[in-house]
């Protein structure tokens, strides 16, 4: 048998093994049940993570108490052994009050405001998907997302909700869901860290009612209004583009995408594995400007191969995270990552917020029930700005 035949035979045997291991196909009438069950299973796994993570949240909050809230200064004592030499640029600044503008008014801001735990400040509300980001003084980040387009099984609600012809109804009478279902999620993490402390999903009444509160607040009256809301453009477009360009050239890698995650927070992702493989290794550059949180200068976890390098520049926390992939090998060396952060730092040292960009134009078709005020509020602009955009005087 020649090598070609032998390879073809091996490939067929491999496909046979994979197919046999999958078992029989579900019947047609089982498809929906299977689909819903897999959604539930994912939620259950998150719950397991949550149980362990609840302790982590507490431990994290205690551990992060290196920040002395009374004196508003950050301890310089690292929590994890450093392997990348620190530089003078990494000297932490004294904490000052957050200098961020309040988040743009949106239908979601009013809903979120009473739900955030004590000590958290909402710094960003936008979307889609509709997202609110809040930080506390020690750097714990809470991200709440309402994805109206998600296809989620609404059967995850507890006993306090009942089915009606219109949807799920809570004890206080607010209609929660239509049959389509929304994904409502609250994620606790530490600013800049690639880990999630807790993920709450699927309307579960956990964490002081954050998730349930969000679900309950979504009534038919405000649902469409929230779904239509678009956040104002963030003024970091040039900075994000520069970070992408430098990261791409410094690592000779391809940028996979960028994501705005706060008023001045964003991240840029690089796929680090070979282009033609399913290797999951990747590198992420995150830029966070909380003005309140500070991580240690660098963290290298030898057991997992994860490298996290951080740099504090001009109130920005830069975090470069390199995750290993299927081969368990780091895709970039510590030297490469350090070089990248050195190249990126000047961008942030020189950067000043120029405010929202003017590139985010929108077209609005006036429908019955619209008023000048409601349109201005929807796009977070003044009546004068609306009149100017329309090309007519206000009256």
């Amino acid at each position, binding site marked *: 048998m020649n090598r070609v035949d032998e390879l073809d035979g091996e490939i067929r045997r491999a496909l046979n093994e994979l197919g046999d291991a999958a078992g029989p196909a579900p019947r047609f009438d089982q498809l929906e049940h299977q689909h819903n069950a897999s959604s539930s299973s994912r939620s259950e796994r998150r719950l397991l993570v949550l149980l362990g993570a609840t302790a982590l949240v507490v431990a994290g909050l205690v551990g992060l108490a290196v920040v002395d809230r009374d004196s508003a200064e950050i301890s310089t004592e690292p929590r994890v052994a450093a392997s990348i030499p620190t530089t003078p640029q990494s000297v932490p600044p004294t904490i000052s009050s957050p200098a961020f503008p309040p988040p743009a008014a949106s239908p979601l801001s009013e809903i979120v405001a009473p739900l955030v735990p004590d000590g958290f400040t909402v710094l960003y509300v936008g979307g889609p998907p509709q997202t609110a980001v809040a930080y506390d003084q020690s750097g714990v980040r809470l991200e709440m997302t309402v994805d109206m387009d998600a296809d989620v099984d609404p059967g995850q609600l507890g006993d306090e909700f009942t089915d009606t012809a219109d949807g799920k109804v809570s004890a206080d009478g607010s209609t929660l869901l239509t049959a389509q279902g929304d994904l409502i999620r609250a994620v606790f993490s530490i600013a800049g860290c690639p880990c*999630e402390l807790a993920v709450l999903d699927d309307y579960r009444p956990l964490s002081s009612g954050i998730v349930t509160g969000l679900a309950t607040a979504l009534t038919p009256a405000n649902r469409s209004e929230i779904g239509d809301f678009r956040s104002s453009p963030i003024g970091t477009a040039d900075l994000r583009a520069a970070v992408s360009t430098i990261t791409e050239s410094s690592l000779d890698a391809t940028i996979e995408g960028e994501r705005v995650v706060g008023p001045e927070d964003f991240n840029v992702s690089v796929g680090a594995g070979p282009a033609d493989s399913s290797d999951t290794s*990747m590198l992420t550059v995150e830029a966070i400007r909380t003005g309140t949180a500070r991580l240690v200068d660098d963290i290298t976890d030898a057991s997992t191969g994860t490298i996290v390098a951080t740099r504090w520049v001009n109130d920005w926390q830069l975090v470069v995270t390199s995750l290993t992939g299927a081969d368990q090998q780091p895709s970039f060396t510590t030297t490469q990552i350090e070089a990248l952060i050195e190249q990126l730092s000047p961008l942030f040292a020189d950067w000043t917020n120029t405010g929202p960009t003017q590139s985010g134009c929108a077209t609005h078709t006036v429908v019955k029930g619209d008023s000048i005020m409601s349109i201005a509020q929807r796009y977070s602009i003044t009546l004068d700005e609306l009149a100017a955009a329309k090309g007519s005087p206000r009256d």
Partner: protein
Amino acid sequence: MGLSAEEVYAKHADELLRFAATLVGPSDAEDLLSSAVLRAMSAASWTSVKSPRAYLFRSVLNEARQLARSSRRRLLREARAAVPDAVDPPIVRPEVLNAVAKLSVDQRAVVFLTYWCDLTVEEVSDTLGLSQRTTERRLRSARTVLRRLLL
């Protein structure tokens, strides 16, 4: 389209499940198949589809691509923290799993249709909506990887 949705599914379910198992592994194959079929058959365009088989294959492939994209980081985290309830059954040899893991989702799709369904390059291209050159390139690079790992 002459057959009902249920009849179309019954006709192709087995090979679609095998296809899904090749793309994402045996453990997630059923979930993937269910999501893909429900999505495809609930689409407004389903009733006007001329080749339901190709449409379902593409739907499964798209679902697998989406799964791969959305779960990259989460899978890494969960793999480190999760209870071991999601491992593939031991019926599959480790070298097979390892070999498939080295292929991209798109390469796996081309390999499956070529070797399991015995389709020609032209037929694979039609099924997946690719150019023949792309199909040939993916098949060639997949064979290179598999030769190294399976022989």
